[in-house]
């Protein structure tokens, strides 16, 4: 009844192929305004939007490649490169700032050895910023995959990263 990624499990991604991508988006053909839905479906399946999908989507939705690219690049969610196994988003908004998200962010960057939009050298973690996860009474918050972790600090963060690193099974 609850999606396993809600529990912090890494999503199961497929290796990208244009053929599979083309097949995947057919269900959105003719459904009004569903380009963003299609982009979400592609990213959910492959982890990112491959360069070659834009002209393919253009054909499906009767748009130019530039229009598709314009939509994909407008939204923060869509990424163009393959991410790490886990995507970690740290809230940067005011309520989390009030509870020390700045220090948490610095510690996270140093512990993962990468900046926002970067991936740790072991390929496991991609770090991103997010503005508000809607859990502002239990700040600061971190989202891993689909799971929110509340009242974070650098110690808890490092323990979480350790657990996920050794969590080979998921």
């Amino acid at each position: 009844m609850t999606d396993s990624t809600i529990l912090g499990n890494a999503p199961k991604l497929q290796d990208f192929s244009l053929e599979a991508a083309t097949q995947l988006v057919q269900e959105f053909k003719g459904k009004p305004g569903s380009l963003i839905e299609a982009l979400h479906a592609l990213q959910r399946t492959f982890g990112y939007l491959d360069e070659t999908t834009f002209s393919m989507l253009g054909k499906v939705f009767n748009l130019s490649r530039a229009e598709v690219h314009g939509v994909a690049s407008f939204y923060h969610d869509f990424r163009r490169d393959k991410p790490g196994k886990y995507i970690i988003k740290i809230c940067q908004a005011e309520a989390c700032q009030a509870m020390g998200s700045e220090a948490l962010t610095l510690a996270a960057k140093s512990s993962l050895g990468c900046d926002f939009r970067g991936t740790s050298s072991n390929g496991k973690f991609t770090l991103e910023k997010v503005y508000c996860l809607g859990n502002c009474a239990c700040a600061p918050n971190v989202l891993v995959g689909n799971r929110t972790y509340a009242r974070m600090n650098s110690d808890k963060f490092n323990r979480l990263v350790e657990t996920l690193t050794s969590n080979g099974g998921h």
Partner: protein
Amino acid sequence: MTVIIYVPRETTALSLGAEELVQALRTEAQYRNLDIQILRNGSRGACFLEPLIEVETPQGRVGYGPVEVDDVGELFDADFLNGGNHRLHIGNVDQLPFFANQERLTFARAGIIESTSVQAYENHGGFAGFKRALGMSEENRVKEVLDSGLRGRGGAAFPTGIKWQTVMKAVSEQKYIVANADEGDSGTFSDRMIMEGDPLSLVEGMLIAGISVGANMGYIYLRSEYPLTQIILQEAINNAYAAGYLGQNIKGSGLHFELEIRMGAGAYICGEETSLLESLEGKRGQVRFKPPLPALKGLFGQPTVVNNVISLASVPVIFEKGAQHYSDFGMGRSRGTMPFQLGGNIKQGGLIEKAFGLTLRQLIEDFGAGTATGKPIRAVQVGGPLGAYFPVNLLDTPLDYEEFAKAGGMLGHGGVVVFDHSVNLAKMARFSMEFCSAESCGKCTPCRIGSVRGMETIDRIVAADNEHERDLQFIILKDLCDTMESASLCAMGGLTPIPVMSAVKHFKGDFQ
């Protein structure tokens, strides 16, 4: 005998381990050969007590919280299945002052019922409003909303009934109802809590909106930062379809209404209604010029009601109990109740639904019990990232749309973020500009470029080594903010000056 235990399936509770708790409770009950049934409610809104578990006993629902996995063995030892005493025992949950002192209309069911069950929803007054609406004409349905005094809870506070009236009167084959669930304002989480705790109230509200204005299609535009909400909401929609409250010939009335969730993609600006409509059409979320109003030319160019989640979720209770009952709450032109959200550096954070008119201080001190760090409050931001920073001497401002505007702030979506003495308001002002530059849709210059110039100007103010230079930069900042305020296309650029200039006005010393 089977004992019923409620464990929230809700973001806050899950972020603090509720799912692991469910496993631990099941395992322990099995080990002790005890018969339990775990039902999944939403949160009642006392985030500081989550995960809050409740046991159904002959004396009512007895609460324990916040519960961690390690407490489970102890709870069974203390006979919590019969309401036994334990250090986490909080007694009858309804009688806890945090809840007993609220006035719950919109959130009356949240945290109490199994969140996606149509049966539980109906047992607690759900769909009674819809049934009453069925016996009314379209005009009278719209009049009911007008009479309730309900104003848009997303922040703009525009009378909901007037929007409905405009769409009702518009002539078109196709009209739409759109729920704005792109709750991007930091410090706000009431949309999420109603969608996770009582999602069917949103479904019913949209259904009533649909049959009032003549729309048979509804979309919920949900932000992607709420993955759990999507799952729960979809489950509720599926259940509503199965029970005949959505689809063709609803409950034999001959009426038709379809409902679909569409996910956002991490753009704050899509909370602005015209940008949201662009995004729903699968385009870049760029703000549209107004007029035409979305009520006349909205989604796919058709008449569209775009309402905030809380506005729509308040509709069922208005129809169930009558417009008069709803408008009896509140003060001045702010009628009804508002679910305030208390977050940031706060001891007892969460959702507090009260009639308009209580003061900010009552909210923070009586419900919130002061800061989490125990240090004195220095600043409070009300109304999200575009709301003003208030100093302590403004804490007695009543929570009311007009009173807040008079004090130079805005109530917005009712989010309240508390800061203690460690906050630096020059930094927060710079953050407001930075946020605006990161989230601007880019369509109008004052917002797109003004925000970048704003960051640079604040940097120069902070770096200035003499009073004269600093004053000069303050003049530039003021001028820039005036331009943004009067020349931006929407509230993003137009309101960013509010937090910035409130920081300058009340906390000028921080800029040195």
